[in-house]
């Protein structure tokens, strides 16, 4: 794609991962591709950094994990949101958006940047 790529801020990776699971169970690889696709490759995320984030979310009880069989009969670990995770996602997303919206507003106000 080219263009700028940003490193993901601390703590927001978890939020992104939670959002990815909103649609249902996914394994780690699927989450990685979803993030890549959804941000149009703007966010630079090493695939490997997902897994510690997934473990931390698991420790906090926001997601659960279970082994299953993928389409091609390979054994893979699937992750799923818990109700607590869903609630957390909703509230944190609202906060993030409010914060980002406020900053955007400031940056777009007069005098505008060249």
């Amino acid at each position, binding site marked *: 794609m080219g263009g700028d790529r940003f490193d993901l801020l601390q703590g927001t990776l978890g939020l992104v991962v939670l959002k990815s699971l909103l649609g249902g169970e996914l*394994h*780690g690889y699927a989450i990685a591709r*979803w993030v890549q696709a959804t941000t149009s490759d703007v966010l630079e995320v*090493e695939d490997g*950094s997902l*897994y*510690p984030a997934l473990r931390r979310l698991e420790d906090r009880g926001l997601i659960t994990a279970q082994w299953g069989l993928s389409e091609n009969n390979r*054994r893979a670990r699937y992750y799923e949101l818990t109700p607590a995770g869903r609630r957390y996602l909703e509230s944190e997303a609202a906060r993030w958006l409010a914060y980002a919206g406020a900053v955007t507003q400031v940056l777009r106000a007069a005098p505008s940047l060249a």
Partner: protein
Amino acid sequence: MDGKRPEPAWRRYSRFLRTDIARDVDEELAFHLEMSARDFEARGMTRADARRAAEKRFGDPGRVAGWLRRHDHAQERARRARETMSTIGQNLRAGVRGLLRQPTFTAAAVLTLALGIGGTTAMFSVVYGVVLRPLPFGEPERLVRLWTAWQTSLGRGAVSSANAVDWRAQNRVFEDIALIRNGNYSLTGLGEPERLNGARVWASFFSVLRVSPQLGRPFTEAEEHTGRENVVVLSHALWVRRFGADPSIVGRTIRLNSVPTTVIGVMKPDFRYPTKDVDLWVPLVIPPGELELRTAGSYSAVARLKPGVTLAQAHDDMRRVSADLAQTYRDNARIGVGLAPLLDDMVGGVRRPLYVLLGAVGAMLLIGCANLTNLLLARGVGRRRELAVRTALGASRSRLIEQSISELVPLLAFGGVLGLLVATWVVRALIPLLPADLPRAESIAISLPVLGFTTVVVALVAILVTIWPAVDAAKSSVSVGLVELSRGATSGPRRARVRDALVIGQIAVTLMLLVGATILMRSFVAVRQVSPGFNPENVLSAHVAIPESKYPLDADVIAFQTRILDRLQTLPGVVAVGMVNRLPLGGGNQTGGLQIDGTKLSAESPTIQTRSVSADYFRALEIPFKEGRSFASSDGPGAPDVAIIDAELAGRLWPGLSPIGRRVRASDGPWSTIIGVVGHVRHSGLADESDPQVYWNYAQRVQDRMALVVKTRGEPAALTQSIAAAIRELDPEQPIYDVRTLAAVVDRSLGQRWFQMMLLGVFATISLLLASIGTYGVIAFGVGQRLREFGVRIALGARRPDVIGMVLKRGGMLFALGAAAGLILALVTVRVLSTLVYGVTPRDTASFVAATLVLFAVSMAACYVPARRAARVDPSVALRSE
């Protein structure tokens, strides 16, 4: 997105067998990389390129895998720990519930534990505080006590100032030496005059002991001289008690012995040397002229060994020093230096009795443990059906053991905690009962080392008590249990033998303790019956210390003392008033060698005790005159020196002759003419023969510290107020102290013996109680098991006395075996009492017999109740029960 299909069942169950964390992590990451590579391949890359691209897109698979493995392992460990804790918690709760369902058993077990652990802890806290705990000084193991060792048979003596100065200068093994002398001080100007215990010490006292004041500073050597010595360091207790812990006390002036003295420091709270009730320290000024007399002065000395110097080296060096001094000075001819570690010197005498008592309480604890084991075994039998059923339902051996342990743990915990409470209470109650001369009694407390000891004891008890019952519970195999279910449970023969053995052991150890206690009791009675040589009934004693500052001349002191005597004589209720500088059996000694006119002072010269007394002293104490007369007012200060000797000395020196008119003198005094002979008095202790005595007239040999002895018509204590008032009348600034009836003084001298006897008696009695409970338990249980048998016998014609006889016979057998073992045990162990007894030998037949009889009576009484129950069995009821 990939749809997920559930794993096949076999895959799920196989994971219960083993969770391989590393393998799972690798598998998850391998899946990711495989999928990633596959995507790249689909875009046209070669397999190898696709693989590389996948790994590049991933980041560092190795590092991530490591992180994940560590994380998952930690989680697994935490989970397992939580599980274990939860299981333990469950087990304990189940155990407590089980205990509460059997309140009698639990109460008996907890009480036994509390008694045993509490008693042992209390006794150990005494042993630790007195004997084991290091002295509260810096590096206390290098401190030694020094004394004068006379090569005649005089033994130990106080240190003279001249020798101390030379020892200090000439030795090569000590960092420094400190000289100490106790003294009396009157604190006045602050309300009621109070007599205080003071110690006069060299400035080196503080450096030798490595102690520093909490406030202010210690003395300097400059203050050891007349004119500079009016400074004082207070003890912490005195500072709090009399001065309200005033933080500005340093620099304040107080009146000691009517002399204004500046307070320059206050010591820390736990510093109490040389005596436990010392109130203050002042600089020691050696009186002018004392240094010229080699043997003048009566001090005690402590020293600190240089680092690396051994006791043996110190001995050798001091031998060299005293040999040198003997060469230089004639008076040092037969004088050596004795030294010993300070702690040994203080507590050596009480080590043996305290260890004996500790052993006794340990024996008592063992007896308690035996009871506990028996209780647990009996309970185990009662639950065999329950255990058999559980085993049949699949409980493993280890699970059964786990369960029985989880009942014992709360039991031991309750028992241990209760035991500690008992110990704390006992120690507090015991402190006022301790003998007054028990050294370091103030160090007795439930401290950390004592708690450590208790923990060890509880652990040992746990092991002792749980081994058999726990193994026993696990051994009840299913088949045996089921078979016995149908027949009606009876106890296995092997288990019964173990219980019997425990009871026999209890009886044996109890007999040993009873014998010991009886011997000490007989010994105590024997000592009390010894006549001290005087009559302590209806005599009140009160001490008076006359300050030199107010009564500087001998004549002043004598005059004051005479005024006191005269005044007290006029009080109503007073029969006679006397005075002596040290009370008999009061703990003080004044020894010396006696020289007879016409002979030289030699190694064969008798060792005597000397006292300064007033004329009526003998009348007040009813010490009989064998010959001659007492002092008269004509035997005053200017008149020829007179002395009264005791019958023992007279008999030794002039057997069959009259000593009246002959002349004697003690070490460095004037020649005195003997004017009377009195009965011998046991000065040092009722159990000691005591050296013979020589009495001087107080008017000729002045003492500034005297004890008044007032013979009263009625209760001596009733006169305390009037005596105090009379003396206050004569001098309002003169305090009196240590007011006691002479009977109390005599009792106090027996304090150690009484204490040992009482403690051993308490341990023996508790053991007797425990053993009788144990006997009762075993016999009652046996009767319970054999109820049907008794029923059958009665049905077949046996009469009540026959049945009772059978039960008692069994009890008698247990007793006989136990007593036999106990007698052997006692014969072996009473040797340790040899230093503690008086008037009886340790192998005292009467004590052995008496103890055995007492034990027999109690054992038979314990058997009688179950015996009666056996005899009252209704045969028809017994035959019917299954």
